[in-house]
């Protein structure tokens, strides 16, 4: 029996640091905006189950976009981007997200993202605490070196498979095969962006010694790291949270680095816990 999903996809055009962008996003639900960033070299389908989860979408307007150069968001329209090496910087990434939220006229959005999306969530809390109601950095830490590698694009290897199988064991063996393989499949599609994204992830994102400048009393921060993540372990997530005034930490057992995509039912429980923490914090402030 056919079923039409309530999730809709649209494009929005806006400018970021001189780049003219046409950005694709999926959305469903109503209420406070929950803006979702996919992981490096991937696209918004990682949020497919959250987007269709009525329990969440009855209270939140879930919006999952494709970052420029990912999924259905093309590279800049006004630039000969093929003549440059792509390297995502923290400045550009933060400017993109705030411009996207402005373009959609989102009020008090909660921002979440995993991996390089988790790292930029920390950057948003540092740079724009007034623009976001809260952030939920997933698989995040102050610093995550070691993944800005040429292997992701090496011309003598199958880049699609190197990227997809290279991130395979960022996922937990317990996560369902169907979801792990869907995530693997997404990763075969983004090798050209993956390496450049990881410039931000492993090089330009470096908040060592700066976490004290983030104030989670102003912009609530709930960090969530998973047990099978070898890049940013729960211990590193916890240590990051401990250095941020007022931040909270949730450890996710039995999952990995792509929790929303590899095992949504487990991830959902932790996300709800994070959203409750944020609601009670924001409620206490206004109440």
């Amino acid at each position: 029996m056919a079923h039409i999903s309530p999730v809709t996809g649209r494009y929005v055009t806006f400018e970021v640091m001189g780049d003219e962008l046409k950005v694709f996003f999926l959305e469903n639900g109503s209420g406070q905006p929950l803006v979702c960033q996919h992981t490096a070299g991937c696209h918004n389908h990682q949020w497919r189950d959250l987007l269709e989860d009525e329990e969440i979408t009855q209270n939140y307007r879930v919006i999952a976009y494709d970052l420029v150069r990912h999924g259905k968001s093309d590279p800049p329209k006004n630039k000969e981007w093929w003549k440059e090496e792509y390297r995502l910087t923290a400045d550009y990434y933060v400017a993109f997200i705030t411009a996207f939220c402005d373009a959609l006229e989102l009020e008090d959005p909660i921002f979440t993202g995993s991996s390089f999306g988790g790292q930029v969530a920390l950057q948003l809390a540092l740079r724009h605490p007034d623009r976001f109601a809260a952030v939920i950095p997933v698989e995040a830490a102050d610093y995550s070196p070691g993944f800005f590698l040429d292997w992701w694009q090496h011309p003598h290897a199958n880049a699609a498979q190197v990227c997809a199988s290279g991130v395979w064991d960022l996922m937990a063996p317990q996560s369902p095969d169907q979801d792990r393989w869907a995530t693997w499949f997404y990763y075969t599609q983004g090798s050209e962006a993956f390496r450049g994204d990881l410039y931000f992830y492993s090089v330009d994102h470096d908040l060592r010694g700066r976490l004290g400048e983030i104030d989670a009393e102003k912009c609530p921060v709930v960090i969530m790291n998973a047990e099978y993540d070898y890049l940013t372990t729960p211990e590193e997530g916890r240590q990051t949270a401990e250095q941020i005034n007022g931040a909270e930490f949730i450890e996710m057992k039995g999952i990995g680095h792509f929790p929303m995509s590899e095992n949504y039912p487990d991830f959902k429980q932790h996300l709800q816990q994070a959203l409750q923490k944020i609601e009670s914090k924001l409620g206490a402030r206004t109440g």
Partner: protein
Amino acid sequence: MAAETAVTSGWIEDFRCASDEDAELQAHGRYYSCAYLLDMEEHSYLVQMHAGKVEEILEDPGPLDDRYQFIIRASAETWRGFGQETPPPMHHGLFAAAFRTDLSLEGDLLVLMQNLRCVVRQIELLRQTGVPV
């Protein structure tokens, strides 16, 4: 020593069968041809693959017995984690273990990357066969 040899020779056969009968390796391993050394501290195994099938597995090869392109080297303790049905965190894959345990990837890593999907899958078969150390 004899008992240990019997155990390990049983593992070689198990690993060969698990590989040659694995649906994923057989569906995607048409070009999986290379040789690598599994160094498990107490024993080492030279695994020679041809077109997705195990050609030969040499146990504790001598220094000049045959050639290989890369080495996956770790302590016996680390490999025991790989051999569990549900491996503990950081023993659940080559990259995870390379980042977080004593496992090292040595030699011509380009050959590893060229065959990454199949090597990753084949190493996961240790969850079925266990490890001989």
